[in-house]
């Protein structure tokens, strides 16, 4: 099973939920931090890092001797990353999305693949859990290419560890968030019952529903705010998979770098319950697939 932990609003407790699930998970698990702009999972899982790799994006490099300034590259480029101005061809590598269009379209073979540093992938082990994270280079604007690299690298990293995957996703509902959740089997949305949390939760539901995956919500800091999210979930039959009460002791445990599932027995039970729910949903999904194939 591949579970993505996402949210509309930031700071609702994605990393808390991911780390806690990892702590109580039964069976082999790989925890993946795909919040590459601000990865925090390692601060709670404390993995022993066994490998690192800098990854890049293919961007064009111009051979000016071959270039005839025909302009085919700049005409095709949708991102203003290559431009012919007078008798000069200029590249703006930081604008490039790495589509490879310019390299393919150049009739003179004047462009060759160069590299833009996207950031770093590191991996290791935290107790019995495999760990992988991407960390975007500061100044790099695009996180989806790095996220794609992390996902592509995943199968080769722990060849002996068939098992479940849990993804800590970035906040929001735009391209980085969608990229993080689109290959998962189940999406866990984490929110808090405040107007901000509820508003952004609705945006996330709207963004992720077209992916057609089972989704449920974990309500963190239950007791804060108001009842709007409960009414919404009830009216739409949207499953509430767990509730974590608003408790200053949990906030303090988090502030000391502790996994809240390990802070007290009550919280631990909440997460073992959530893990069981996810197993059931995953089983139902697999059964549904068998039925539809029969």
């Amino acid at each position, binding site marked *: 099973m591949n579970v993505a932990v996402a949210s*509309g*609003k*930031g*700071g*609702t407790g994605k*990393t808390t939920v991911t780390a806690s699930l990892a702590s109580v998970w039964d069976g082999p698990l790989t925890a993946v931090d795909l919040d590459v*702009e*601000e990865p*925090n999972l390692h*601060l*709670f899982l404390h993995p022993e890092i066994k490998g690192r790799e800098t990854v890049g994006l293919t961007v064009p490099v111009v051979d000016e001797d071959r270039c005839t300034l025909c302009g085919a590259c700049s005409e*095709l480029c*949708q*991102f203003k990353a290559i431009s012919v101005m007078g008798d000069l061809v200029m590249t703006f590598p930081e604008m490039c*999305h*790495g*589509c*490879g*269009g310019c390299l*393919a*379209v150049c009739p003179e073979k004047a462009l060759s693949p160069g590299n833009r540093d996207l950031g770093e992938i590191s991996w290791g082990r935290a107790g019995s859990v495999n760990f992988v994270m991407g960390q*975007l280079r*500061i*100044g*790099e*604007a*695009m*996180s989806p290419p790095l996220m*794609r690299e992390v996902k592509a690298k995943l199968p080769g990293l722990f060849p002996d560890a068939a098992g479940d995957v849990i993804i800590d996703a*970035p*906040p*929001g*509902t*735009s*391209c*980085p*968030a*969608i990229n993080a959740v*689109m290959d998962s089997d189940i999406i866990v949305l984490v929110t808090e019952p*405040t*107007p*901000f949390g509820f*508003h*952004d939760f609705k*945006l*996330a539901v*709207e*963004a992720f529903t*077209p*992916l057609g995956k089972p989704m449920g919500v974990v309500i963190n800091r239950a007791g*804060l*705010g*108001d009842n709007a999210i409960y009414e919404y979930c009830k009216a739409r039959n949207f499953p509430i998979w767990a509730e974590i009460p608003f408790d*200053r002791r949990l*906030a*303090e445990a*988090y*502030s*000391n*770098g502790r996994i809240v599932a390990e802070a007290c027995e009550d919280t631990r039970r909440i997460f073992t319950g959530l893990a069981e729910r996810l197993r059931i949903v995953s089983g139902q999904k697999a059964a549904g697939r068998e039925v539809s194939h029969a």
Partner: protein
Amino acid sequence: MREILIISGKGGTGKTSLTAAFAHAADRPVICDLDVDAPDLHLLLQPRYEQTETFVSGHEAVIDAETCEQCGLCADMCRFDAIVQRDGEYAVDPIRCEGCKVCVQFCPANAIAFPESECGLWHISTCRFGPMVHAQLHPGAENSGRLVTLLKQQARQLAEKQGLDLILCDGAPGVGCPVISSLAGTDLAVLVTEPTPSGLHDLKRIAELCKHFKTPAGVIVNKSDLNPDVTAAIKEWSEESGLTYLAEFPFDPDFPRAQVEGKVITEFGETALGALIKQTWTAIESLSRVSSRAA
């Protein structure tokens, strides 16, 4: 004209609640919500929408099944795995399509159209503290950086037209494209963090981003009483790093209460926290004048 941006790296540290309180403390700023992905400022400021426009940016490939000859070249060339086979026919997965046009360019049958994509809506509004510019990206849409740039241009035009000299912006979490776009032209970035390992870790990254783009920055620790040791560590790190340490705000249940009531925390009468927030705003204002002159 000065531009002040409230950002945090980590989400949920209190950017929006504090931006709204600063908007109250300021003298008619142009208020600008640059979190176009999950905007919340309007929930507190309850603006009256005066103008709404669609935000069209970029394109999306669409395969015409009738014309397609099933050669599969598009699928081979797409670097984003956006060409999928559905019932034996090639189709574009709009969620993965980056709008790069490679498939359109190289399709030997000319079977791929390339319509513009509507990515969101943006608004010019008025709220009780001043004019407001804000937007909402469509769920799953791209080009948030371009929308941020557009909002900033609109805010500047509005400030000029109304003779206002301050733009107060609420930013997005993270350090990626919308945040980088929101730093352009900013005189002072106010970094709001919390005393947790994530808060400090993400503060370091957002501070490095500000340094990278040569934007002066100050630091506020919100919910500071949650962990006084980490708060002290953040203060020490900020001062060592040449950032102005602006203030510490304790956790206050009035923050969620303000959200529920659609109010700003400084609208609950005279409180100690309210006074501290106003005092901090005065410090931010004068710091932004210094950095604006220096620039």
